[in-house]
């Protein structure tokens, strides 16, 4: 057990050390990409808590991502606050919105759950458009470099941005690793496998699913708030259905129910589109073929396949 634990920490800690080392060697283009990928991977980590570990397929996570982004950006733009309280406002907005949606959506299961989350996320998207006077709708609004200085650190500087993204990613990754190995996370996995049995072991399944959704939504909101702050922009696109589908794709590709899967999937998908769009204008065709191949040959995602073939104890 403890040997396994050492291996687990070596693997996940090793990835973080590698990402930090890359900070010093990557060329500017890939350096910028990786910063973006780490923030989006944090979003995917949040999504994976609910989908991969608890087995609840949400189609409305853009609502949480956008709650974080707008909670942060609106409080800077109109509240005149500094980035630190703005980030907290974004995270708190995500926690409240996910808690409220959980109370409604968790009364349903399966396809109905997917539809309810999708509808509420669409309602959120339309709300952002409706209050276009403040949110600037699809066009969005830019946060100036002067508004993005956190404790004297200019987050519009690429180097600072990379380190900030890495810190966010490290916190989310470690939180996720800790959660799924803790008793609470073990119950979530058990709910995914057989909810009725969990109830008959004396666990309140509803309370656990509620907790999972709030943790998932809050991490997603933290990623959304960080994205807005680091890249200096908030727009309604991030609340659209596309941004609910992305984390699902990333997690499926990387390996649902694995701690590293969300990062691997986000990295893979980002560069798949990046590289194929450099080759041809029909890049979505290449991306599509690669996705189909992966679904055929690694149906449990990349990290899922690794778990199946190499290391069964991979968390």
């Amino acid at each position, binding site marked *: 057990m403890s040997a396994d634990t050492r291996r687990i920490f070596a693997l996940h800690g090793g990835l973080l050390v590698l990402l930090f080392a890359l900070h010093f060697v990557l060329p500017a283009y890939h350096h910028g990409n990786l910063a973006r990928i780490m923030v989006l991977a944090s979003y995917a980590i949040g999504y994976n808590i609910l989908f991969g570990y608890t087995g609840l397929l949400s189609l409305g996570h853009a609502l949480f991502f956008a709650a974080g982004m707008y909670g942060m950006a609106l409080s800077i733009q109109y509240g005149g606050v500094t980035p630190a309280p703005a980030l907290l406002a974004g995270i708190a907005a995500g926690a409240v919105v996910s808690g409220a949606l959980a109370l409604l959506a968790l009364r349903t299961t399966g396809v109905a759950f997917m539809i309810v989350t999708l509808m509420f996320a669409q309602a959120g998207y339309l709300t952002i458009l409706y209050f276009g006077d403040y949110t600037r709708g699809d066009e969005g609004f830019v946060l100036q470099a002067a508004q993005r200085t956190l404790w004297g650190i200019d987050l519009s500087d690429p180097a600072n941005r990379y380190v900030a993204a890495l810190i966010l990613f490290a916190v989310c990754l470690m939180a996720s690793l800790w959660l799924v190995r803790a008793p609470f996370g*073990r119950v979530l996995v058990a709910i995914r496998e*057989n909810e*009725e*049995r969990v109830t008959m*072991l004396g666990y309140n399944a509803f309370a656990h699913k509620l907790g999972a959704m709030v943790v998932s939504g809050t991490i997603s909101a933290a990623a959304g708030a960080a994205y807005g702050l680091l890249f200096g922009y908030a727009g309604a696109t991030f609340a659209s259905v596309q941004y609910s589908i992305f984390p699902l794709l990333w997690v499926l590709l990387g390996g649902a129910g694995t701690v590293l899967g969300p990062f691997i999937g986000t990295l893979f998908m980002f560069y798949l589109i990046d590289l194929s769009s450099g080759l041809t204008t029909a890049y979505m065709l290449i991306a599509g073929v690669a996705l189909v191949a992966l679904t055929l040959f690694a149906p449990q995602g990349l990290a899922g396949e690794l778990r199946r073939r190499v290391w069964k104890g991979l968390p």
Partner: protein
Amino acid sequence: MSGAVLLSTHGLTKRFDGLTAVEDVDFDLPAGEVRALIGPNGAGKTTLVGMICGRIAPSAGRIVFDGQDITALPAHARIRRGMAYTFQITSVFPRLSVRENVALAARRRIKGRAAVDRAVGAALERVGLPERPDEEAGNLSYGHQRLLELAMGLVQAPRLLILDEPTQGLSEGEVERVKALIEELRGDTTILLIEHNMRVVMDLADRVTVLNFGRVLAEGTPAEIHADAAVQAAYLGTG
């Protein structure tokens, strides 16, 4: 043998549309007793225990556990009060390890990784499944999955252990092991046992309740039940 009443039902009834599965059952189970619940297929045994442990909402009647009315409590809250239920159709977590299956049952009561590990090891040892605890539960044979169910029940240290056909599908040797296990638990735990294997019932039960068409047909010691003409006709056959 018989202490204070641990569990009682009053006028417990379950109707599924037109069908009355359980009708007006008054049932008292004293603490410490091993009670068998028998009856022909479709007599309402699983429905009755389903209502007791909260899987099925009753149409009428009350359930009192340890002096408190639990009729309105959800299943998980009843389990927390000291019931454990092992499923008739095995319901383990097939993709989780044997160890993790039992650990999930243990963690609600026991805190701390080392203490949970110890309790899990002891429970697996007790049911005779100590080998290969890291195997996925879904890979176990049917009989071993039943033993795993039993370990998940035991590790909860329940005051009332409800066993729904624990020996179904087990080999002779495994049946003997389950019998010995129930014998060991006698006195510490109150046991409600649904069982078709009459040899097991006759050997283990302090008292037997017979259900037929959702009603209590007879209740008594195994010898009395064996001699009861109505039971003979309904269930045991004429032999």
